[in-house]
């Protein structure tokens, strides 16, 4: 945790510097007759972010924050595994949206989570994984008239049937 806190502060300081540099694409000073330039607001805020990172590093050096006094690892084996399986599952879910449609990705994600992470039985897993995207389809497309991504062309026949029901 100790090393992690300083590394995080360092990365955030670099990010603040990047934001300052990016803000300077527009004027950051006061322009007579126009007021503060377009880059002024993000530039000065990014500078405050940078100074805050300096303060965080100082507090770390003085051992003021709980993390700076902790010798525990940032994440243990369970933590990394959770992050990989759950976080990775979410990334996979979003990556699948443009392939199998939003509803298809919801079904695949629920199947993965309920069966493999939650260890629920097949009947419950299949019921939730199929009924949830179906219910969502009628809510979003029918009631709210919000069109979700429909993925690649091979999903079209399924959507044709579902739209037939709505309209």
């Amino acid at each position: 945790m100790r090393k992690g806190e300083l590394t995080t502060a360092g990365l955030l300081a670099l990010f603040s510097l990047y934001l300052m540099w990016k803000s300077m694409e527009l004027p950051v000073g006061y322009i007579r007759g126009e007021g503060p330039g377009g880059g002024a607001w993000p530039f000065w805020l990014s500078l405050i972010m940078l100074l805050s990172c300096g303060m965080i590093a100082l507090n770390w050096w003085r051992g003021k924050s709980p993390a700076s006094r902790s010798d525990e690892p940032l994440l243990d084996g369970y933590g990394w595994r959770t992050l990989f399986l759950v976080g990775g599952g979410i990334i996979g879910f979003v990556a699948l949206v443009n392939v199998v449609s939003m509803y298809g990705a919801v079904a695949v994600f629920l199947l993965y989570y309920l069966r493999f992470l939650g260890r629920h039985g097949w009947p419950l897993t299949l019921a939730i994984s199929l009924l949830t995207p179906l219910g969502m389809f009628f809510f979003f497309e029918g009631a709210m008239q919000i069109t979700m991504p429909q993925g690649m062309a091979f999903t079209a026949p399924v959507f044709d049937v579902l739209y037939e029901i709505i309209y």
Partner: protein
Amino acid sequence: MEVLGFLADGILMALEPLNLMLILIGVSVGLFIGAMPGLGSVNGVAILLPVTFLVPPGSAIIFLAAIYYGAMYGGAISSVTLGIPGASTAVATTFDGRPLALQGRASLALVTAAIASFIGGSVANVLFTLFAPVLATLALSFGPPEIFALMLLAFATFVGLGGDDIAKTVFSICFGLVLASVGYDQISGAPRLVLLDISGFLHGIGFLVLAIGVYGIGEMLWTIEQTRGEVTTTTPRMTVSGMLADTKEALARGWKGTTIGSFLGFFVGVLPAAGATPGSLMSYGVAKMVSRAPETYGRGNPDGVAAPEAANNSASTGAMLPMLTLGIPGSPTTAILLGGMVIWGLVPGPRLFTTETEFVWGLIGSFYVSNLAALIINLAFIPLFVWMLRMPFTILAPMIFVLSITGGYAATRDMHDIWLIVIFGLGAFFLRKFDYPLAPAVLAIVLGPIAEPTLRQSLLLSSGDPSIFFTRPIAGPITVIALILIFLPALKYLRRRKPAAAE
């Protein structure tokens, strides 16, 4: 007395069978739309606007106002049960509502939210009825310096919300404000902070993208990692006597927050550029500040639920005031309501109260009836919402992830934003590990688009002289109070150090 006569006529009009039916449907629809992360009153009102052409204008506005009311009540439901603020107005409700739910007191949190919302709405209705024209004139005297001073006051309360590490809180506030400035410069129209030159950043970063990332993904990952996947909440009370006991407890432990939220929320809501979000946040901050046990805030204090909920309902009614009396919408939802009124052939403005008396008082009457209907319908549905929490966490967690992604897409309709939600979620998980407070960033991204233009307009007015924030009669005191609040933690720290040094 004349006002009371008009009000009685208005309430009778709202109680006509067609209007009463529209109120009940509107409140129920609004409640469920408001409870969905990513959807709020603005979606409900916008989608159902065409339906209103089937009924007379008076009934139409009553229907839309009922949806607006229902959605305001519904916002608290996702904050408490899922830990995701469905709308910016319900962010502060998450701070204490979610801890109460995790302690098995979701029913108490939801009952407190419902009662506080009802009282907040009722206080606002009375103030609206009695002082509409006077308050509209007062609101007009708020120019850019006054609005910026108010924003500064809101940021000052963040410092109090952020916990002990001031540097991390300040970082979080500035981070949220910088994210809000991504996209286009509002004044010159030039592209600004297009990160890594990715064109998706040109349309900016919305509040919901950060909020869903932080609360829907980051917070959930953190909860799963901390609890080893075994989240336990005690079985919530579902009986009538349990609900009555919760009601009693909500009144006893949430009255202070309700009172603060009801009045403060209304006055902030009346201001054209402010609205319910700063109102709810400031009420939470003030309730915490005046509390005898501020350390209990953020750990499941009913006052912490009552203050923002009373405030956001009160402010929603307040936001109707500039819309009706001046024709200035105070929020996106009131902007759509205003559009509807124009389509129905009504001209909002000071003369509306004299030329369309029946319409105006019918609407005001419907506020009273909608508020009561929303309370009853909300209380009736609480067992259903609490039941959701009895689901095993291995079912609830993926459902929350799915709602976060689909709700996020429904709000922004852009896959770029969905990837941002995932990145913010993973980033929030690590920042949470190092005790970075993230709520101030979420609230700052909401207030940033109000704060920046008002600061720039003020400095333009004063030719770059910042004393404009101190010399104007309304802006001056607000700025001074804000600065005192900002520097209060530093002063406390110095006072603590002095005796230590003496020893």
